[in-house]
């Protein structure tokens, strides 16, 4: 936008050079400045105010954050996100990789298997959540089935048990998301040179060792991409919880994104919502910034 260069005198105006391109970029410029940059700064600033029903610029320092971190509901949300995050990361990577490795064995009907593993990803979290809510229903679903098969004392009731409800959500999330991870991993495996495999076979290295010590280290970029994708999905966890448990039983499956929504639009306590969303931003920054730095910061090789 600026016209500070020396050539300005020779041309009519720098402003009108490439005018059409600038016009075409107006939506991007507005989005970048007003929404992404402006909106983020706005939310951070207002998280230091005591806004209730309407945003007001009455600063109260770190009050909202103190209240946030002493709210049992927020602490439950963070704990849930932590448990869910760690397990979802591990299981997605392991299941995704194992499925990809199996599909990579030059098997028949690979396309059929791939289509089956990936179709849940086309479904929304709401549909996923409601489906699994039904399957895990204690009176009709898996528990009922095993009990009526003769094992009377069998108990598997994650959606109505505060201790394990987050695992019920994890089951649904893994069903929905592992297909994508498998696809990314499969693409990574296909990118490995056939000769590596031949060389390993000639040297008599067992297959699992080849995977563990040669192939996986070679797939580092794929793993990092996948990791970023999984991590950014974890922080966003919202629709699935709303559909599957509505945060219950007794608030045992609350997550940060739901905390933000509820405080902003239901409890009319905007300040809390802003503080909570700023914490979410912080947690993403903790994941993304080191990754960006490691991958692109100190590196100057091609």
């Amino acid at each position, binding site marked *: *936008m600026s016209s500070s260069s020396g050539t300005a005198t020779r041309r009519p105006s720098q402003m009108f050079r490439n005018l059409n*391109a600038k016009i075409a970029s107006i939506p991007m410029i507005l989005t970048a400045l007003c929404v992404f940059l402006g909106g983020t700064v706005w939310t951070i600033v207002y998280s230091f105010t005591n806004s209730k029903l309407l945003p007001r610029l009455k600063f109260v320092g770190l009050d909202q954050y103190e209240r946030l971190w002493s709210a049992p509901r927020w602490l439950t949300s963070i704990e849930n996100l932590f448990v869910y995050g760690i397990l979802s990361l591990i299981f997605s990577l392991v299941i995704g990789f194992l499925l990809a490795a199996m599909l990579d064995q030059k098997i028949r009907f690979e396309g059929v298997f791939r289509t089956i593993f990936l179709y849940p990803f086309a479904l929304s979290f709401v549909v996923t959540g409601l489906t699994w809510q*039904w399957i895990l229903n204690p009176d009709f679903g898996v528990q009922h089935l095993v009990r*009526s098969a003769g094992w009377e004392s069998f108990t598997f009731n994650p959606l109505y048990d505060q201790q394990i409800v987050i695992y019920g959500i994890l089951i649904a999330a893994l069903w929905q998301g592992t297909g994508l991870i498998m696809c990314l991993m499969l693409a990574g495996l296909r990118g490995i040179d056939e000769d590596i495999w031949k060389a390993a076979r000639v040297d008599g290295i067992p297959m699992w060792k080849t995977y563990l010590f040669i192939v996986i280290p070679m797939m580092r970029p794929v793993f990092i991409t996948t990791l970023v994708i999984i991590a950014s999905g974890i922080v966003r966890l919202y629709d699935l919880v709303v559909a599957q448990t509505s945060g219950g039983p007794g608030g045992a499956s609350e997550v940060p994104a739901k905390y933000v929504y509820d405080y902003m639009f239901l409890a009319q306590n905007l300040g809390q919502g802003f503080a909570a969303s700023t914490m979410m931003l912080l947690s993403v920054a903790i994941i993304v910034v080191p990754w960006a730095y490691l991958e692109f910061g100190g590196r100057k090789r091609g």
Partner: protein
Amino acid sequence: MADVQTLNTVAVGIDPVADRLSGPQGARPKRVLSRRNIFLYGTLIFVAAYYLVPLYVMIVTSLKGMPEIRLGNIFSPPVEITFEPWVKAWATACTGLNCDGLSRGFWNSVRITVPSVIFSIAVASVNGYALANWRFKGANTFFTILIVGAFIPYQVMIYPIVILLREIGLYGTLWGLVIVHSIFGMPILTLLFRNYFTSVPEELFKAARVDGAGFWAIYFKIMLPMALPIFVVAIILQITGIWNDFLFGVIYTKPDTYPMTVQLNNIVNSVQGVKEYNVNMAATILTGLVPLLVYFVSGKLFVRGIAAGAVKG
């Protein structure tokens, strides 16, 4: 600067996904009933069954009457097939005071998805073209902000957008939601188109310039026809993404204009009345039908689209 490259590398890393998935290379193995094959296929079939069971349960449940559901188990096939739950889910299921079923949500979702897809792709494709071929001063700065913005959790920006939409009088309307979808689709779509147009040989562009074609002439006559595959990828990505959206729908629309996902959740999770599981499952399948159709029809392109889209958010 670094961040643009970051996302570029991510996108480049993903781009060959579809190509590489085109199938295994080398000769087919001989069909032997070895122990390895039994284990391999056994595991794969078992896992595939696990992935298919929820779909099966949904379909089976939606075809049973309520008495049968109460007696039997959810995995047994229906004794008496009835399509009544489907009719009810579509036409008469209640959310709050409205009792015209999911059809309302379906048409709302159509009215949201169609303009959102067209608008967001039109904006992003022209923008990506400008970034690739008509670079101007400062363009990369804005683009970097846009891409970094893709990693910011939505929750940070939803309230400022409420205020912006209220200022221009679009809060609670379908068009407000269209704008929101265009905003949040912009980073990944712009990246997609920018990378594609950058890969177009520059001679082509220069030749057109020499012949006197301007910004829009080159876009419509040369770039647009060449970029059709990438448009298809973008359309798939946007249709599934926008149809499946729940968060923006619930925030930026009113009960009358709720998209299908929000209405579905309200129907199934409503606390009033007797739970009709068969109607709920029929409604759930109906809501998943559009993205499933897109998935099965588009095949390999879908993989490419979602792989690119997974980065957003």
